[in-house]
Every structure is written in structure tokens, then in C-alpha cells.
């Protein structure tokens, strides 16, 4: 599978935007990725080994949260995109 790395995480993956890894599930692909690039791990997983809530993982055009999460089956040629969330907005407290 091809894993697409977002701009902020490329410094931890030899500046690559796409990394090809082997694996039959999304979780196996991510394990292979973080094994090759250990510095990526803390950006994708919490200290207790769960995928970070603000990072989205899309297999082709589907959010793996709504499939089988890390156990989502992956075929050769599939694309797994790592997409940190893009959100925010006005609050009552504005920074000085």
C-alpha cells in the first residue's frame, strides 16, 4: 500500500510524501511505516499505543474509523492517507 504523508510529518520520514509499505491491514501498514521511521510514532500514536484522535486515516476515500479501524483490510495498490484535522474558530478568549 501507499501511505501518503502530510506536510508536517515529512521531516520525520526523510521528507517523503509517499511511502510504500507491505501489510494486509491499515494497522500493519502503519506499524511498518513507524518501524521504518520511528520518529513518526509519537505523531500518530498516544503513549498508550492508540491512534491519536486528531489524526484521520483514510483508506482511499473512506475513514478507517467507520470501517474496521486498524484492522481494516488493505489491498495492494490501496492508498492510505494520514490527515491531521484542520479545525479551530473564535473563542471568547483571544490571544494577546
Amino acid at each position, binding site marked *: 500500500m501507499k501511505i501518503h504523508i502530510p*506536510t508536517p510529518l515529512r521531516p520525520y520520514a526523510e521528507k517523503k510524501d509517499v511511502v510504500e509499505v507491505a501489510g494486509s491491514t491499515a494497522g500493519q501498514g502503519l506499524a511498518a511505516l513507524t518501524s521504518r521511521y520511528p520518529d513518526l510514532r509519537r505523531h500518530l500514536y498516544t503513549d498508550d499505543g492508540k491512534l491519536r484522535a486528531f489524526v484521520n486515516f483514510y483508506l482511499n476515500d473512506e*475513514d478507517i474509523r467507520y470501517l474496521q479501524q486498524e484492522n481494516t483490510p488493505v489491498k495492494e495498490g490501496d492508498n492510505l492517507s494520514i490527515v491531521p484535522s*484542520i*479545525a*479551530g474558530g*473564535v473563542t471568547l478568549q483571544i490571544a494577546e
Partner: protein
Amino acid sequence: MLRIPQSALEDLRRHGEETYPNECCGVLLGRLEGEVRRASSIARCGNTRSDSPQNRYNIDPKELIRTQREARERGEDVVGFYHSHPDHPARWSATDLAEAHWTGCSYVITAVEGGLAGRTCSFELAGTGEEDKRFLDEEIEVVPAAASIESR
């Protein structure tokens, strides 16, 4: 520093006026050249926060993936994001920082007062991750229309 064509800057400011009193949002596309984020265009996105669009924004990851794919075909990438602050200053909020995760990218904010775009400011999300991320004020260099055509 963020470098952006005048037309793209005007478009993102107009977007904020069109969605007022709700927040608008979108993506800045271009190239990273050293410390300069050189945007060449913007991609307007929908705000998925239909529960509270007047003070929150969220871009659908699916829309970002599609936008990124189209940009990649032109040899471009995501260099930042923009959104509006209806009837609030063009400063980042605590929510903006808490929910920002694209370090090394520009976050552009336009104040929209009573439906008219006011100041537009840009902030670089600096740091290496969640522990040390912070917004830094950054200069916006506006490239006039004629110059932006010449530099293509």
C-alpha cells in the same frame, strides 16, 4: 513568511464576507521554498461545523485529500489554511491553537466585521509537535497581479 498573489488574498477575504456571519475556511496551495511558504492559489472548502458555524470551522479530510491530489498533479502542495473570525479580531484564539496540527504551515485569519473583511493576518504554526507547538506572527508578502503572472 507567506507570499501570496493579490487575487488569492482577495478571494479568501471575499470568501469570509460571503459566509458571514459564519466562518469560512480553505486551503493555501503552492510550494515551500526555504522559509517562505509561496502560495499560488487557494481552494475554498466547506465548513462542516454546522452545529456552530459562527464560531467554529472544520475542513472535511476527504475534501482535503481531493484538493491535495489535484494540487499534486500541478506539482503543488498544501502550504497553509485560512479561516475567518466573524466580528472578532484577526488573531488566533485558544481554540485555533488547540486544534492546529499542521506544523510548518501558515494559518491565515481574516476579521470580518458586520459582513466586511477587515484585517488579514497570518501565523506560522511552529514547533515539532503537540508539546511545543505555537503560533508565530508572520509577514504576508502580497504579490501584485502582474508580478504573479511573470513569476509563473
